[in-house]
């Protein structure tokens, strides 16, 4: 009798473990499907619907992470959650925060810390600053759209001076997020870290840097600004460029998108 009970418990544990792995695999597949359906070009898709589906997936993955017993599997769920929440945009703000916080804590507790799961730890640490950067990019795009609209009637139109604080703030935030992502990149020194992951992180740094330059350029499209009045901004931009190009080489924001590595 005793022997049968032990055998049952063992089988149950095995089934649950397999089920958890299957569940992780399934969520990853869903994430891939969602990405295929919604795509990177948000303009052509039903953005709200896509974001809701991403956020639903992110919440499921977070719940599964909290229910998983194996730390590495838990971390993988956190990674799926953070990634889905990133794609959910503003809807995923809370989830991305929770999944990255919990995942980051987990990475610290692993036997070899980040080196135990270098990719997932790196992605979890990156998810939040990338999500913030994506949000900043959306805010900047709103201003760019506004400027485009103004120029429909007057090609020489500029943004009203009242938009300048927002533009300058966006620049500062991009700079901050760039530095955060650069810090994560600086920790990817373990031999187990793939070169592809490093290249991927570098691409994200380039993207944030280019958004910062875009914000910088937009500042000159605000009424009343001059190179002199924006000299402090120029100084910060020059310093940012030095930091970026010291490790990334010269960055051409016009050709960088075409050179970015394909994410896997």
């Amino acid at each position, binding site marked *: 009798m005793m022997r049968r009970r032990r055998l049952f418990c063992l089988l149950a544990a*095995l089934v649950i473990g397999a089920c958890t792995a299957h569940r*992780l695999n399934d969520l990853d597949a869903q994430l891939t499907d969602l990405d295929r359906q919604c795509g990177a070009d948000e303009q052509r898709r039903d953005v709200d619907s896509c974001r809701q589906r991403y956020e639903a997936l992110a919440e499921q993955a977070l719940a599964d992470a909290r229910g998983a017993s194996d730390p590495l599997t838990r971390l993988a769920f956190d990674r*799926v959650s953070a*990634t889905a929440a990133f794609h959910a945009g503003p809807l995923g703000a809370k989830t991305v925060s929770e999944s990255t916080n919990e995942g980051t804590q987990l990475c610290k507790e692993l036997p070899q810390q980040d080196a135990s799961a270098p990719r997932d730890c790196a992605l979890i640490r990156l998810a939040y600053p990338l999500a913030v950067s994506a949000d900043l990019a959306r805010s900047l795009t709103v201003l760019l759209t506004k400027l485009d609209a103004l120029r429909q009637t007057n090609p020489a139109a500029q943004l009203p001076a009242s938009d300048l604080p927002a533009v300058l703030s966006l620049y500062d935030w991009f700079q901050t997020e760039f530095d955060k992502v650069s810090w994560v990149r600086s920790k990817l020194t373990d031999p187990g870290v793939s070169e592809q992951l490093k290249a991927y992180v570098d691409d994200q740094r380039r993207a944030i840097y280019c958004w910062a330059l875009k914000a910088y350029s937009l500042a000159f499209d605000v009424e009343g600004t001059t190179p002199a009045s924006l000299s402090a901004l*120029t100084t910060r931009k020059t310093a940012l460029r030095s930091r970026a190009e010291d490790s990334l080489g010269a960055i051409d924001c016009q050709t960088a998108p075409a050179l970015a590595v394909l994410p896997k």
Partner: protein
Amino acid sequence: VDPTLIIFGIRALVRLWRGGAQAYAQYARDKAVLLPRLTFPPFDDVDFIRAELLDPQQVWRISANGPLVEFWSTTLSRPDPNVPGSAEALYLAALQIFSERAARESGLLPERGREVAGEKLIAQWAAGTGPVGPVGRFALTLTDVAAEFVGANPSLLGVDANGEKLIGAVATNLTQMIPDDAADFGPKSQFAERVLGIFLRAGLDALARHPDALVNDQHLQQLMQNTLPPIVQALPADLAEQSAWRDVAEALLGPAANAAVETIAANPRAFLGREFDPNNAVGALTQAMLTQASTMGLRERFSEAGALVLYRAALGVIVDRPELFAGQADRPTAQIARDLLATTAASLRDAPAPFDGDLGADLVAAALDSLRREGPRFLDAAAPWERGVAALAAQVIDGLASALRDPQTQRLRSPLSQPQLVELARSFVVQAAQTPGILAGNRSELTALVAGVAQVIARDQAGLLSPTDWLDVAAVAAQESLANPQRLFALAAGATAAPATALLRDLLALAAAETGAGGRDAGGVFFGATLREAMIVTLRAAAGNAAGAAAHPDVVKTLAQQLCDLVRAQPGRMGSKEWLCIFRSAVGQALDQGTVPELSDAHVAQILAGGHLG
């Protein structure tokens, strides 16, 4: 069934399952996954320009007095939309700054950076889906022409290669080529592209022929600056005039640019360290030639060849006598160049054929060549030199016309062919240019000299002298006459012919009579070389005794007649050589004394033995 066996079976299964589950879990965790990815911003050229040119170390380029300030709108902090090509010009600069930095960061030479920038630029402009702006179009033109040449002349490109210098010179000044209608791809813009291609092709062609020339790229830059933009800007607004201007540029600019670049390549020192910049003159001259050709119509007066002969000769003057083209406040370089060609065209307009076209231009070119060699000493110091050059040719032509013009056809008639006639005129021009002040004070000396010689030539209907002989006689006549002013061809009051003209005319008449009397069949020698030498000897003798020649106009003819008779009477003992020997010995005395010396057998024998008349 043995339960133990079943339990062992289950254990085996669990073992397998556990391994599989662990492997599956690891697969699920580690498989390639979707990563969060940021999109890049829409980063247009203006963003790129601002990112580079507003940098504290680069902003000087678009600040006051900066080289690119004209393209920058300070109010919009972007390329000035009212300046065509501004976005491209600034983009070009930004790309160069970026690429050089990129090269530095990669440990490459800045040249490599520029190369990278060039590749990017061409790739962007060549493959761009949108309309290419003016700078882009110009750059593509440069690339096309350069590629065309480099295939056949690979050594043209490379470090310090002349072709690269020329392309660099043009590329550096590309923005200056952009006319104000470039944004709309207007007529000037289209014309500028065409002109650019013509200039570069011609320049490369010239440099390919001078692979070892040490060409200064600054000179090429200045040549380009001084030549092309003014030609583009001068494109008239009127459609018909535009067409004429285009035709002229198509026909003349290539050869002119070829000649100009060749001049720079062949005379590098001439363009160095001068107070006056000869490049300005080359540009002014090129534009003046095109303007002149356009004004009077291409091929109306000169063919392209005629215009280019003048142009090349004027280039020679720029190289050797640049001070002549040095502009002053009241007479800038451009005006000097214009006046030179306009005066030439005007002076040849009324000239008789064949001097009313290319042959006239040849003559003026000969005058310019003489000016280059001799300096302006033959000119009238009181008048602009460029008018004097045309006047020199005009005086020679006038002299020929007065003697050779057929009253009915108004064309020149002479035993000489047209090229020989030009050669004759050229010899007068060359000789005259060696004579100080020949044109000063409205002198007609040169015209009289030419007319006097031409009158004699015109009488030689029987061809007693070959054209070459006549050219020799004319050369001596010019030499002696110009060296001995107011003697040989000055018409005295009441006289119908100048002394030298009369002397030559009489000798020719005698030769004609001799021919009529049997000529060579009768043992006569007075034709061809003998006649030529007799004329030359007479001219030299008369030059030193003009009074005798004027006082005794028939004595030379008498002497010649007696010698003809003498030689004809003793064909076994005397011939042409003896005729000339005696004539040389006797003609001076004859002119001096007005009588023919005694030609006794003893005297003749003495002369032929190497002695002189006593």
